[in-house]
Protein backbone atom coordinates (compact mmCIF):
# COMPACT_ATOMS: atom_id res chain seq x y z
CA UNK A 1 0.00 0.00 0.00
CA UNK A 2 1.41 3.38 -0.95
CA UNK A 3 1.52 6.36 1.39
CA UNK A 4 -0.97 8.12 -0.84
CA UNK A 5 -3.42 5.20 -0.61
CA UNK A 6 -2.94 4.90 3.12
CA UNK A 7 -3.62 8.53 3.91
CA UNK A 8 -6.54 8.71 1.49
CA UNK A 9 -8.27 6.07 3.66
CA UNK A 10 -6.79 6.79 7.07
CA UNK A 11 -7.33 10.54 7.26
CA UNK A 12 -11.09 10.47 6.54
CA UNK A 13 -11.44 7.67 9.10
CA UNK A 14 -9.51 9.76 11.58
CA UNK A 15 -11.76 12.73 10.93
CA UNK A 16 -14.82 10.55 11.57
CA UNK A 17 -13.26 9.27 14.77
CA UNK A 18 -12.55 12.80 15.97
CA UNK A 19 -16.08 13.88 15.12
CA UNK A 20 -17.47 11.03 17.26
CA UNK A 21 -15.00 11.26 20.12
CA UNK A 22 -17.76 12.24 22.54
CA UNK A 23 -19.19 8.72 22.33
CA UNK A 24 -17.49 6.54 24.91
CA UNK A 25 -18.16 2.79 24.75
CA UNK A 26 -17.12 2.06 28.30
CA UNK A 27 -13.54 3.27 28.56
CA UNK A 28 -13.19 3.07 24.82
CA UNK A 29 -13.57 5.91 22.37
CA UNK A 30 -13.27 4.41 18.92
CA UNK A 31 -10.10 5.25 17.05
CA UNK A 32 -9.81 5.69 13.27
CA UNK A 33 -9.42 1.99 12.53
CA UNK A 34 -12.95 1.33 13.79
CA UNK A 35 -14.28 3.54 11.00
CA UNK A 36 -12.72 1.45 8.25
CA UNK A 37 -15.47 -1.09 7.71
CA UNK A 38 -13.83 -3.20 5.02
CA UNK A 39 -11.86 -5.83 6.95
CA UNK A 40 -9.40 -6.47 4.16
CA UNK A 41 -8.68 -2.77 3.87
CA UNK A 42 -8.36 -2.46 7.64
CA UNK A 43 -5.76 -5.21 7.66
CA UNK A 44 -3.79 -3.35 5.00
CA UNK A 45 -4.02 -0.16 7.02
CA UNK A 46 -2.85 -1.96 10.16
CA UNK A 47 0.05 -3.49 8.27
CA UNK A 48 1.08 -0.13 6.83
CA UNK A 49 0.89 1.49 10.23
CA UNK A 50 3.08 -1.15 11.78
CA UNK A 51 5.60 -1.11 8.94
CA UNK A 52 5.85 2.68 8.85
CA UNK A 53 5.40 3.40 12.53
CA UNK A 54 8.82 4.98 12.99
CA UNK A 55 8.44 7.14 9.91
CA UNK A 56 5.17 8.63 11.13
CA UNK A 57 5.75 8.03 14.81
CA UNK A 58 4.85 11.55 15.87
CA UNK A 59 1.49 11.37 14.10
CA UNK A 60 0.56 7.83 15.12
CA UNK A 61 1.51 8.39 18.73
CA UNK A 62 -0.37 11.65 18.95
CA UNK A 63 -3.49 9.94 17.64
CA UNK A 64 -3.10 6.99 19.96
CA UNK A 65 -2.51 9.15 23.02
CA UNK A 66 -5.50 11.32 22.19
CA UNK A 67 -7.93 8.41 21.93
CA UNK A 68 -6.44 6.77 24.97
CA UNK A 69 -7.03 9.97 26.94
CA UNK A 70 -10.57 10.36 25.64
CA UNK A 71 -11.33 6.72 26.44
CA UNK A 72 -10.30 7.16 30.05
CA UNK A 73 -11.80 10.65 30.46
CA UNK A 74 -8.38 12.19 31.06
CA UNK A 75 -8.46 15.98 31.00
CA UNK A 76 -5.03 16.45 29.53
CA UNK A 77 -2.21 14.74 27.69
CA UNK A 78 1.26 15.57 28.93
CA UNK A 79 0.04 18.91 30.21
CA UNK A 80 -2.02 19.82 27.15
CA UNK A 81 -5.81 20.01 27.41
CA UNK A 82 -7.44 17.33 25.26
CA UNK A 83 -9.46 20.00 23.44
CA UNK A 84 -6.26 21.84 22.52
CA UNK A 85 -4.65 18.54 21.58
CA UNK A 86 -7.59 17.80 19.27
CA UNK A 87 -7.27 21.12 17.50
CA UNK A 88 -3.58 20.46 16.92
CA UNK A 89 -4.39 17.03 15.53
CA UNK A 90 -6.89 18.61 13.15
CA UNK A 91 -4.16 21.01 12.07
CA UNK A 92 -1.83 18.07 11.44
CA UNK A 93 -4.53 16.38 9.34
CA UNK A 94 -4.77 19.49 7.16
CA UNK A 95 -0.97 19.45 6.68
CA UNK A 96 -0.98 15.81 5.68
CA UNK A 97 -3.90 16.38 3.32
CA UNK A 98 -1.96 19.16 1.67
CA UNK A 99 1.14 17.03 1.48
CA UNK A 100 -0.66 14.18 -0.24
CA UNK A 101 -3.06 16.45 -2.17
CA UNK A 102 -6.16 14.85 -0.69
Amino acid at each position, binding site marked *: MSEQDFFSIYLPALEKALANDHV*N*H*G*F*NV*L*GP*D*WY*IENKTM*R*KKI*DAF*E*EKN*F*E*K*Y*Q*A*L*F*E*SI*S*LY*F*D*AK*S*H*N*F*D*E*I*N*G*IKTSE*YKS*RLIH*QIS*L*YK*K*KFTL
Partner: protein
Amino acid sequence: MEITLCSSLVRILIEAKVSDRIAVCVGGTVSGDSFTGGLHAGLKAGLLSGGTGGVLGGIGAVKNNLNFLTGKPTAGYQHPGLASSSDIQATKNKFWKTHAANTQTPTSIEAGPIAWNESINAYGMGRRDRFWAQNPGAGWDEQWGFIPGPSPGHITPVYPESYLIGGGGAFKAASALPKLKWLRVSGGKINGFTISKGAGYGAKPRLDFHKLGRASKASNSLTVPKLLQNRKILHYHRGLGNNLRRYRPWEKGWNDKNFWSRF
Protein backbone atom coordinates in the same frame (compact mmCIF):
# COMPACT_ATOMS: atom_id res chain seq x y z
CA MET B 1 -7.60 13.22 44.29
CA GLU B 2 -4.22 11.53 44.35
CA ILE B 3 -2.78 9.08 46.79
CA THR B 4 0.94 8.38 46.73
CA LEU B 5 1.42 4.67 46.34
CA CYS B 6 4.66 4.60 48.26
CA SER B 7 3.44 3.03 51.50
CA SER B 8 1.38 0.40 49.71
CA LEU B 9 4.31 -0.48 47.51
CA VAL B 10 6.60 -0.82 50.53
CA ARG B 11 4.09 -3.15 52.18
CA ILE B 12 3.75 -5.23 49.07
CA LEU B 13 7.49 -5.48 48.70
CA ILE B 14 7.99 -6.48 52.34
CA GLU B 15 5.34 -9.14 52.05
CA ALA B 16 6.99 -10.35 48.92
CA LYS B 17 10.30 -10.65 50.73
CA VAL B 18 12.04 -8.25 48.43
CA SER B 19 12.46 -5.53 51.00
CA ASP B 20 15.89 -4.63 49.70
CA ARG B 21 14.04 -2.81 46.96
CA ILE B 22 12.40 -0.38 49.38
CA ALA B 23 14.90 2.12 48.07
CA VAL B 24 12.43 2.54 45.27
CA CYS B 25 10.23 4.58 47.53
CA VAL B 26 12.99 6.40 49.31
CA GLY B 27 15.18 7.82 46.66
CA GLY B 28 15.22 5.61 43.63
CA THR B 29 14.05 6.50 40.19
CA VAL B 30 11.32 4.50 38.60
CA SER B 31 11.62 4.68 34.87
CA GLY B 32 8.49 3.93 32.89
CA ASP B 33 10.07 1.00 31.18
CA SER B 34 11.39 -0.48 34.37
CA PHE B 35 7.96 -0.28 35.97
CA THR B 36 5.98 -2.02 33.29
CA GLY B 37 8.89 -3.98 31.84
CA GLY B 38 9.51 -5.57 35.20
CA LEU B 39 5.81 -6.12 35.67
CA HIS B 40 5.67 -7.75 32.29
CA ALA B 41 8.59 -10.06 32.97
CA GLY B 42 7.35 -10.81 36.47
CA LEU B 43 3.85 -11.70 35.37
CA LYS B 44 5.20 -13.89 32.65
CA ALA B 45 7.59 -15.72 34.95
CA GLY B 46 4.92 -16.02 37.64
CA LEU B 47 2.35 -17.45 35.31
CA LEU B 48 4.88 -19.83 33.84
CA SER B 49 5.74 -21.23 37.26
CA GLY B 50 2.20 -21.29 38.60
CA GLY B 51 0.89 -21.20 42.19
CA THR B 52 2.29 -19.24 45.12
CA GLY B 53 5.81 -20.17 44.16
CA GLY B 54 5.07 -18.87 40.74
CA VAL B 55 3.87 -15.57 42.09
CA LEU B 56 6.97 -15.22 44.27
CA GLY B 57 9.05 -16.25 41.28
CA GLY B 58 7.30 -13.57 39.32
CA ILE B 59 8.04 -10.96 41.95
CA GLY B 60 11.64 -12.13 41.97
CA ALA B 61 11.73 -11.67 38.25
CA VAL B 62 10.37 -8.17 38.73
CA LYS B 63 13.16 -7.55 41.21
CA ASN B 64 15.76 -8.87 38.81
CA ASN B 65 14.42 -6.94 35.88
CA LEU B 66 14.15 -3.56 37.52
CA ASN B 67 16.93 -1.09 37.80
CA PHE B 68 15.25 1.46 40.00
CA LEU B 69 18.30 3.09 41.46
CA THR B 70 19.87 4.18 38.20
CA GLY B 71 16.81 4.66 36.07
CA LYS B 72 18.70 3.15 33.16
CA PRO B 73 16.94 0.73 30.84
CA THR B 74 16.67 -2.70 32.37
CA ALA B 75 19.25 -5.14 31.07
CA GLY B 76 17.70 -7.64 28.76
CA TYR B 77 14.40 -5.81 28.51
CA GLN B 78 13.64 -4.45 25.09
CA HIS B 79 11.07 -1.78 24.62
CA PRO B 80 8.52 -2.84 22.02
CA GLY B 81 9.32 -1.12 18.79
CA LEU B 82 12.67 0.18 19.97
CA ALA B 83 15.53 -2.27 19.98
CA SER B 84 17.75 -0.71 22.64
CA SER B 85 18.90 2.63 23.96
CA SER B 86 22.17 2.36 22.04
CA ASP B 87 20.23 1.74 18.85
CA ILE B 88 18.10 4.79 19.52
CA GLN B 89 21.15 6.93 20.02
CA ALA B 90 22.85 5.47 16.95
CA THR B 91 19.78 6.34 14.92
CA LYS B 92 19.73 9.85 16.28
CA ASN B 93 23.45 10.33 15.66
CA LYS B 94 23.11 9.05 12.11
CA PHE B 95 20.23 11.38 11.47
CA TRP B 96 21.99 14.48 12.76
CA LYS B 97 25.21 13.64 10.93
CA THR B 98 23.30 13.68 7.67
CA HIS B 99 21.18 16.68 8.66
CA ALA B 100 23.86 18.80 10.26
CA ALA B 101 22.48 21.94 8.67
CA ASN B 102 19.02 21.27 9.98
CA THR B 103 18.94 23.64 12.89
CA GLN B 104 15.66 25.30 12.09
CA THR B 105 12.39 24.00 13.41
CA PRO B 106 10.30 23.17 10.34
CA THR B 107 7.11 25.12 10.13
CA SER B 108 5.52 22.70 7.75
CA ILE B 109 5.76 19.05 6.90
CA GLU B 110 5.73 19.99 3.25
CA ALA B 111 9.41 20.84 3.23
CA GLY B 112 10.54 17.30 2.58
CA PRO B 113 10.10 13.66 3.44
CA ILE B 114 8.45 13.08 6.79
CA ALA B 115 11.16 11.08 8.46
CA TRP B 116 10.20 10.46 12.05
CA ASN B 117 13.15 12.38 13.37
CA GLU B 118 12.06 15.35 11.35
CA SER B 119 8.56 14.99 12.67
CA ILE B 120 9.93 14.90 16.19
CA ASN B 121 11.93 18.02 15.42
CA ALA B 122 8.77 19.71 14.23
CA TYR B 123 7.20 18.74 17.52
CA GLY B 124 9.88 20.46 19.52
CA MET B 125 12.15 17.52 20.23
CA GLY B 126 15.05 18.81 18.15
CA ARG B 127 17.19 20.34 20.87
CA ARG B 128 17.56 17.15 22.82
CA ASP B 129 18.27 15.18 19.68
CA ARG B 130 20.99 17.62 18.69
CA PHE B 131 22.45 17.39 22.18
CA TRP B 132 22.64 13.62 21.84
CA ALA B 133 24.32 13.93 18.47
CA GLN B 134 26.87 16.44 19.73
CA ASN B 135 27.52 14.58 22.98
CA PRO B 136 27.51 10.93 22.00
CA GLY B 137 29.14 9.90 25.27
CA ALA B 138 26.85 11.96 27.46
CA GLY B 139 25.50 10.22 30.53
CA TRP B 140 21.83 9.78 31.26
CA ASP B 141 21.82 12.55 33.84
CA GLU B 142 23.19 15.07 31.37
CA GLN B 143 20.68 14.01 28.78
CA TRP B 144 17.88 14.07 31.28
CA GLY B 145 18.78 17.60 32.28
CA PHE B 146 18.52 18.73 28.71
CA ILE B 147 14.80 18.83 28.32
CA PRO B 148 13.71 20.89 25.33
CA GLY B 149 11.08 23.55 25.63
CA PRO B 150 7.95 23.43 23.52
CA SER B 151 8.09 24.82 20.04
CA PRO B 152 5.40 27.50 19.74
CA GLY B 153 2.75 26.67 17.24
CA HIS B 154 3.57 22.98 17.22
CA ILE B 155 2.57 20.01 19.25
CA THR B 156 4.57 19.73 22.44
CA PRO B 157 6.41 16.41 22.70
CA VAL B 158 3.79 13.80 23.19
CA TYR B 159 5.94 10.83 24.07
CA PRO B 160 5.26 8.85 27.20
CA GLU B 161 8.08 9.22 29.71
CA SER B 162 9.14 5.65 29.01
CA TYR B 163 10.46 6.83 25.64
CA LEU B 164 12.84 9.25 27.26
CA ILE B 165 14.50 6.47 29.26
CA GLY B 166 16.17 9.04 31.47
CA GLY B 167 16.90 9.00 35.15
CA GLY B 168 18.81 10.46 38.06
CA GLY B 169 18.11 13.14 40.60
CA ALA B 170 16.11 13.00 43.80
CA PHE B 171 13.63 15.59 42.57
CA LYS B 172 12.91 13.58 39.48
CA ALA B 173 12.59 10.47 41.60
CA ALA B 174 10.12 12.09 43.94
CA SER B 175 7.95 13.33 41.11
CA ALA B 176 8.13 9.95 39.43
CA LEU B 177 6.68 7.93 42.29
CA PRO B 178 3.68 5.87 41.25
CA LYS B 179 0.42 7.43 42.36
CA LEU B 180 -3.13 6.21 42.52
CA LYS B 181 -5.65 8.42 40.75
CA TRP B 182 -9.39 7.95 40.40
CA LEU B 183 -11.01 7.48 37.03
CA ARG B 184 -14.34 9.22 36.62
CA VAL B 185 -17.18 9.24 34.14
CA SER B 186 -17.97 12.57 32.54
CA GLY B 187 -20.48 13.31 35.32
CA GLY B 188 -17.78 12.98 37.96
CA LYS B 189 -18.70 9.59 39.44
CA ILE B 190 -15.69 7.41 40.27
CA ASN B 191 -15.66 4.25 38.19
CA GLY B 192 -12.13 2.95 38.51
CA PHE B 193 -8.59 3.93 39.26
CA THR B 194 -5.23 4.20 37.58
CA ILE B 195 -1.71 3.92 39.00
CA SER B 196 1.14 5.62 37.22
CA LYS B 197 4.17 7.79 37.78
CA GLY B 198 3.85 11.53 38.25
CA ALA B 199 0.83 13.77 38.52
CA GLY B 200 -0.62 13.46 35.04
CA TYR B 201 -3.14 10.80 34.14
CA GLY B 202 -2.65 9.32 30.71
CA ALA B 203 -0.05 9.13 27.97
CA LYS B 204 2.17 6.81 29.94
CA PRO B 205 2.55 3.23 31.07
CA ARG B 206 0.15 2.51 33.92
CA LEU B 207 -1.88 0.00 35.86
CA ASP B 208 -5.65 0.48 35.51
CA PHE B 209 -8.75 -0.93 37.16
CA HIS B 210 -12.02 -0.44 35.29
CA LYS B 211 -14.55 -2.21 33.12
CA LEU B 212 -13.44 -3.33 29.69
CA GLY B 213 -16.00 -2.96 26.94
CA ARG B 214 -14.20 -3.82 23.77
CA ALA B 215 -10.71 -4.08 22.33
CA SER B 216 -8.75 -0.89 21.83
CA LYS B 217 -8.30 -1.68 18.16
CA ALA B 218 -10.84 -3.02 15.70
CA SER B 219 -8.53 -5.82 14.56
CA ASN B 220 -7.77 -6.95 18.11
CA SER B 221 -10.02 -8.98 20.37
CA LEU B 222 -10.72 -9.05 24.10
CA THR B 223 -10.26 -12.39 25.80
CA VAL B 224 -11.84 -11.76 29.18
CA PRO B 225 -12.97 -14.90 31.05
CA LYS B 226 -16.76 -15.19 31.40
CA LEU B 227 -16.57 -14.81 35.18
CA LEU B 228 -14.97 -11.40 34.80
CA GLN B 229 -17.08 -10.08 31.97
CA ASN B 230 -18.91 -6.83 32.75
CA ARG B 231 -16.82 -6.44 35.88
CA LYS B 232 -13.96 -4.13 36.65
CA ILE B 233 -10.69 -5.79 35.76
CA LEU B 234 -7.11 -5.00 36.64
CA HIS B 235 -5.00 -4.52 33.54
CA TYR B 236 -2.05 -2.48 32.41
CA HIS B 237 -0.89 -0.32 29.52
CA ARG B 238 2.63 -0.10 28.21
CA GLY B 239 4.56 0.63 25.02
CA LEU B 240 4.21 3.20 22.28
CA GLY B 241 1.51 4.11 19.78
CA ASN B 242 -1.37 1.66 19.58
CA ASN B 243 0.54 -0.58 21.97
CA LEU B 244 -0.08 1.89 24.77
CA ARG B 245 -3.82 1.62 24.29
CA ARG B 246 -3.91 -2.14 24.59
CA TYR B 247 -5.64 -3.63 27.64
CA ARG B 248 -2.93 -6.04 28.66
CA PRO B 249 -2.96 -8.94 29.20
CA TRP B 250 -6.62 -9.36 28.21
CA GLU B 251 -6.39 -8.07 24.65
CA LYS B 252 -5.17 -10.27 21.85
CA GLY B 253 -3.38 -8.31 19.13
CA TRP B 254 -4.12 -8.85 15.47
CA ASN B 255 -0.47 -9.67 14.77
CA ASP B 256 0.62 -11.23 18.05
CA LYS B 257 3.36 -13.76 17.47
CA ASN B 258 2.40 -15.93 20.42
CA PHE B 259 0.47 -15.98 23.69
CA TRP B 260 3.11 -13.98 25.53
CA SER B 261 2.83 -11.05 23.14
CA ARG B 262 -0.28 -9.93 25.00
CA PHE B 263 1.81 -9.25 28.10
